[in-house]
């Protein structure tokens, strides 16, 4: 359970207010460009400071912790992998940060890559892979991090509709299997319809919800005017 307790985030003139409790499961975050969807996620991951308020995960206050000590993994829109490191080296960074990839770490990495379907690409550089494969590699790193919350800041927006749909399915099944709470930012209401999930709507400088997807996407729902 994630609880935003009277959270206010200021970025220049922009202000976002969040006061909500998000239960375990898959949640999409929808809103128009510039509404503050990324700001909401970044405040949770620790990349954006709060002006006031508190954030709790289960009963633990996390808003004072640095990003790497929060129970969250993030996949950003871009720069999710270091382009000069192979996939094994990229993933090794969350396996204890050693100066080299040990045999044990490589074995562990191989295993998660199998889960996301790119085990054969372990020694490739990101530039030698497609956008979808890179997203899978970033997802594999999330599995290695073993955090209970996964934040997805539109990481699949540059992919084609089929690839995007496939990856959302993959994230959904992995989240079920590993018991991970997922917050997925999307512009496309179709993404929310694709899987059983709840929906947070960000508009008018506020984060609203979570709603049942059907409620959020209904004609008189909070997304009225956006759909």
């Amino acid at each position, binding site marked *: 359970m994630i609880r935003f307790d009277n959270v206010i985030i200021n970025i220049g003139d922009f202000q976002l207010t969040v006061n909500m409790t998000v239960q375990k499961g898959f949640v999409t975050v929808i809103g128009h460009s510039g509404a503050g969807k990324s700001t909401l996620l970044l405040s949770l991951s*620790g990349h954006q400071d709060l002006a006031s308020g508190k954030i709790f995960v289960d009963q633990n206050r996390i808003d004072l912790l640095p990003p790497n000590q929060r129970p969250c993994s*993030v996949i950003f829109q871009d720069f999710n*992998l270091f382009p*000069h490191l192979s996939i094994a080296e990229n993933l090794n*960074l969350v396996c204890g940060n050693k*100066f080299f990839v040990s045999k044990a770490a490589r074995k562990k990495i191989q295993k998660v890559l199998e889960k996301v379907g790119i085990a054969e690409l372990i020694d490739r550089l990101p530039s030698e892979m497609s956008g979808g494969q890179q997203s899978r590699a970033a997802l594999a790193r999330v599995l290695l991090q073993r955090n209970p919350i996964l934040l997805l800041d539109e990481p699949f927006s540059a992919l084609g509709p089929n690839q995007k749909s496939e990856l959302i399915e993959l994230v959904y099944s992995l989240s079920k299997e590993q018991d991970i709470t997922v917050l997925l930012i999307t512009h496309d209401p179709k993404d929310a319809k694709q899987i059983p999930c709840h929906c947070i709507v960000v508009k008018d400088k506020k984060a609203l919800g979570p709603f049942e997807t059907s409620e959020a996407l209904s004609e008189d729902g909070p997304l009225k005017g956006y759909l």
Partner: protein
Amino acid sequence: MAHRTVTVISSLFLVGLLLGPLMFLIHFSGLSLNLTSSDMAAIEFTFVQAAYSATLSTVLAIPVAKALQRQNFWGKQLVVLFLGAPFILPVIVAVLGLILVFGNNGVINNILNFFGFEPFKIYGLWGVVLAHVFFNLPLAIRIILQGLNDVPGEQYRLILSLKLSLSQKFFALDWPVLKKVCPSIWAVVFAICLSSFAVALTLGGGPKATTVELAIYQSFFYDLDFAKAAQLALVQVFLVFSVVVASQFIIRPETVLGLNIKIFNYSHSRFEKILDFLIIVVTLLFILTPISVIFFFGSAGIFSLPPSVFKAAILSVQIALLSSFMSVFLGLCLTTKIGEVVGSLGIAVSPIVMGAGTFLMLKNFGNPYLLAIPVTATVNALISLPFVIRILKPPAEEIRTEFDNLSRAIGLAGIYWIWWVYLRRLKRPIGFSLGLAAALSMGDLGVIVLFGSGEIATLPLKIYQLMGSYRSEEALASALLLSLLAFGSFAVFDRIGRML
């Protein structure tokens, strides 16, 4: 945060290194400034030679850059590459080459003699100016060429479609660029020439052609008048610092707008084409002939050089290695705005000034000559530091911008971040910087003249000693060896950076 701490610590260390010798100079000067007429003459000469050098370098660079921009020909990239050669060419080698070409028995004077003209006097003001133009003309050409190439292609299309006259085209296209870049180039070259030492040492001298730097050396080395040396050193710091501050008002930031679609058809007349090629060929001859003659005349004696030359060469390599690693290490710690400002202080405090201050400082504790190698390496490292920071800062800033979120998200920090991200991403600029710093140190004839002796001599100092004792053949062969070492070290480090 961690990077800021590293920058602050390194900046304090650097300021200490620079200010320590300065403080000793102030102490030694007795806080008095008794400038004699010969000191005033040195100050005047310093300004005059720097003004001539800066003006000639800037003015002559304009037609060359314009010709290079207008003409597209096979090998153009190579020509631009050759223009970078004087930057890493040791000063003493260039001076030897210039003496061979423009000296009393050189090709130019033979031609002038044949046609009954007055010979060109290489020793004195014009020789100093000639050497400075040799070093700075390529720099000016490259900066102007970059400025001209940055003009958006759309602007060229528009102007060329209007069928304007040559002068109208010049004022519409080139004048705005020149107005912007030329004052900056003039200021930079002026500042460089103000603290030029090795050129003045070899081609200047005497009451009419002594720069302040040379006067410091003479007070130090010949008159053993340390107080006078300290006073002159403070004058030098004041002069350079004033120019550096003043130049901040002249140098304007670059702004380029447009899609920058390159235009390759400038539709110029046959006359323009011939003129452009003539300009390019003459410039190449001016740059490459002094280098070529060293290779030509020096190769014969390279295998019969005395062991003392090889000993000096080994010392030069050792100092260059030490100095380049120090410079790049400091550079990596100073890849921020503050770091760049602090790192550039080395330009204001010249090697001779730093050397003189350090010498006086060490004299209080023991024999300064015993520390010749570490002092020379440190001063050389500080001299190349501004260039190293300039190379490393942009990619380092890019790394911090692009990968900060990712690094923080996965908790990659400290030594692991340096290992996996910083060093790996920067290996090419690090290789390039190491090469540049090594080449600059290899050719330096600055602080070593204060600390060096018969026993401890770097290769440039050895060449200077050979020149002084009229052992021309050995000097030429040693100059070739020094050139090979300077260019070789640059090439090796640059290659390693690319290969890793």
